[in-house]
């Protein structure tokens, strides 16, 4: 007789049934934790996306202003001369 004979299939089935209840609670806890992590991760990513978009818009505005300023700067002396004449 070996250890497997002593445990037997009935013992194994009983063990599985005893652990099933605990396994369900562990699964439920893990799922809730995962759901919370996903939700917080999504919110953080959304915040980062909004931040990146605002930064890109600001950068685009800045470049447009810089181009306008350069254009005015080029036209500026000519306009100033016309004004004095």
């Amino acid at each position: 007789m070996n250890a497997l004979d002593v445990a037997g299939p009935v013992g194994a089935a009983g063990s599985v049934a005893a652990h099933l209840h605990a396994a369900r609670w562990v699964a439920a806890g893990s799922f809730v934790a995962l759901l919370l992590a996903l939700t917080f991760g999504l919110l953080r990513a959304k915040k980062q996306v909004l931040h990146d978009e605002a930064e890109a818009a600001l950068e685009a505005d800045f470049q447009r202003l810089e181009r306008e300023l350069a254009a005015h700067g080029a036209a500026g002396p000519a306009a100033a001369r016309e004004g004095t004449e």
Partner: protein
Amino acid sequence: MAQTMETFEGAVGVGPAPPGSSRQRYDVLGRALSGLGFAAIWGLAAGSGAPALALANVYKVPMVLALSAVVALPAVLVTRHLLRIRVAPFELCAALVTSLYRASLLLLGFAPLLAVYAYTSQWVAPWLAQGSGLLALGCGAVALRSELSRLPAPRLQLLLLGSVAVITLALSLLQLVSLATPVLTVPTVFGSGIDGVLR
């Protein structure tokens, strides 16, 4: 040609977001949560014959889907490491999440039909539920293969990685379904997990 297009897209600032960027992270997390929502709707439809079961399924079916992905993920990452596939773990997770999202989209498509059958037929509804579940699993496997084929790695290694992912996902799904039983109004062969299938 593709490289030229990618360079052009990069220069003009269009096209897909770079891997791991905040936009891509947001998309992947959004897909993960949407997939869980779709699975919850399928669960509601599958158990709509009994109101208590339907309400319990709103939590049980997404739990089975989410935990099966979590259980399968370490095996997938270890396989990636052993096969020396030079792909970022985030990209693998994104492929896995996208395939599960597509599978749950299929479940969402079947949900109204399943709800009608759950109210009107006692015998066909469980078959339809199991059939749509298996079809979603197949659709997920095809979607995973399609997502993995886009990654920059040898095809054979990606095929092996995909096979490992599908097998571990299926095995973990089977046991987690047995943990969440009852999901349908009648007992099925999947209710006892792998012991019930092999018996």
